[in-house]
């Protein structure tokens, strides 16, 4: 039997993804549906599988109204993500622009900035972060202890920022206190931005130079539009990364419940959490997509 070329090609397409698809059904789709079912049940493990009775929205009720910490944790994680994500994005774009320039020691700096990518996903990160915190070395004060003076305060005085307003000073201090976390969580984002920057056509750069654009104008009028699709990608990646981080408090609470064999409430919490993440990602994607510039080819 002879099939049309296009049809044969599409059959090969199914062939290529078949292995993955079977795996996805067994190891991903069925477990996802099952965990959704658990969230409506009072379940406990038994020989032969999970057994349990339907409790309707009972587990969801438990998550919000009975559990002492869940709501508070949820708000905390949302707040943390809300202010950390833009900071990580701005920071990683800034670093990527610098690392894209030509200078001595560029390869070394790039290697150093990608280093967190290989370390930050593991337990090593928690240990070094914890150890540094317990010795009081995790934040900007590490510089201060080294030079035995309040370096940040001095710098703010020097710039004339000190004491303008309390809230501003507070903000600057929180940011500098978290610089460790921000730098260490920006590895992949820097990588993505750098790749995007390397894809800016040389002709665009030349045209801008001909017209006498300053570096500042070049950044806003050339760099930013060209990397804007990647801003969206980085944004989503950062949000997912921070929401699914096993170290955040909501994840911690869910894992605690799971190790307590309370699968029903744990699943309910996980699904509420996941729905919020999904909604946040969806809304923000819609908003950012309006400002994204796609080059028509």
């Amino acid at each position, binding site marked *: 039997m002879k099939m049309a070329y296009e049809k044969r090609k599409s*059959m090969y*397409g*199914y062939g*290529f993804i078949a*292995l*993955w698809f079977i*795996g*996805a059904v067994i*190891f*991903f789709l*069925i*477990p*996802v549906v*099952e*965990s959704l079912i658990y969230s409506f049940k009072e379940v406990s493990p038994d020989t032969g*599988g*999970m057994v349990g009775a339907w409790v309707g929205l009972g587990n969801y009720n438990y998550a919000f109204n009975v559990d002492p910490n869940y709501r508070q944790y949820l708000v905390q994680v949302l707040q943390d993500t809300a202010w950390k994500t833009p900071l990580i994005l701005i920071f990683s774009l800034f670093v990527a622009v610098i690392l894209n320039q030509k*200078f001595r020691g560029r*390869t070394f*700096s*790039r*290697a150093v*900035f*990608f*280093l*967190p990518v290989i*370390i930050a*996903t*593991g*337990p*090593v990160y928690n*240990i*070094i*972060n914890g*150890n*540094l915190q317990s*010795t009081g*070395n995790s934040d900007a004060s590490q510089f201060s202890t080294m030079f035995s003076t309040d370096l940040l305060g001095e710098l703010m005085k020097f710039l004339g920022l000190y004491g303008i307003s309390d809230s501003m000073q507070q903000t600057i201090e929180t940011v500098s206190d978290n610089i460790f976390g921000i*730098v*260490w969580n920006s590895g992949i984002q820097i*990588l993505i931005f750098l*790749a*995007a920057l*390397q*894809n800016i056509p040389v002709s665009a750069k*030349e045209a801008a*130079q001909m017209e*006498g*654009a*300053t570096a500042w*104008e070049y950044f806003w009028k050339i760099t930013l539009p060209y990397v804007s699709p990647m801003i969206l990608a980085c944004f989503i990646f950062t949000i997912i990364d921070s*929401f*699914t981080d096993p170290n955040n408090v909501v*994840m911690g609470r*869910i*894992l605690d419940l799971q190790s307590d064999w309370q*699968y029903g409430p744990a699943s309910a919490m*996980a699904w509420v959490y*996941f729905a919020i993440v999904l909604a946040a*990602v969806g809304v923000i994607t819609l908003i950012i997509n309006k400002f994204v510039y796609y080059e028509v080819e």
Partner: protein
Amino acid sequence: MENMKEHVDNAENLSARAVSLTESFQDDEQVGSGMSKREARKIRMKSMNRTEIAYMRRQRLFQLVWPFFRFFILFGLCFVILYPLIYMISCAFRDSVDMSDPTVMWIPRTLTLDIIKETAGVMDIWETLKTTLLLNVGCSLIQVASCALAGYGFARFKFKGKGLLFGIVIMMILVPSQIISIPQYMLFRHFGAFGFEVNLINNKLCMYLPAAMGNGIRAGLMIFIFRQFFKGLPKELEDAAYLDGCGPFMTFIRVMIPNAASSFLTVFLFSVVWYWNDYYVSSTFFNKNQTIALMLKNLSTLLSQQLFNNADVSPREQIVWMEAGCLIAILPILVMYIFLQKYFTEGIERSGLVG
């Protein structure tokens, strides 16, 4: 902005000025007829108006000052990143007494290899390394292959339901593995169908099976990267192979994979790192499992059981053993990274991270 407008307005001198401007951007090493750079610049300046000269001045000042700024920024940030590593090395080779000595900041008073040896002993390092290599590195290799297949299928073939199926890939990226870990546990506990059941818990298969079918740790992200990458390769590559009578599968193996070598290396590095650092999945499916990440995660318990005999050792003094454990755990991937970083840092534009 004003500069730019002015250029457009003064049309008569436009081309001449544009040439002089672009020249000023290049580091003109060879200036003709034996003039020094400074003289050449002077001559060029004569044909410019005031705003242009001001623009040139600003540009030169910026180019003079910026490298210093850049150096300080990069130096500071590199310091923030390298600080824990330097601290790790400094701690791992010192005696625990040094931790409570306020005069010891970076250079240990007593250099010793004992701490490293003790920690390696507690972590049962050779057995652990063997398990990690067999289980995690093996899985990551297989997963690179299975994800490449799926990624290629999504990148190059048109078929019905492709959008929907790719939606599943996106879902795999979004859904945290913690949500599905318990159904997965039950799946492996009672693995099989039609009345036939095996218990795969504590069996290496429960990590190898998902990896081989492109559903292991962060498989969604890897399929996504591969898809973006294969989309970026020129179509002519395959058309040529098809014309010569090569089937799609052989085309993939003979033509696409060799062309994708650098991106395979990047994804391989990611994959190894993610599997190497994983402790959640392996601790779910194994009652007792000696992977290096798990050992490190439980290191403080192990230390107090085996080394301190449940004696009270202050957390501050424990740091030396913990940091030594960290050093042991990341050393292999650190060495791998140092060897591969050239491809990693220079070859990312071809790694498929940009679509």
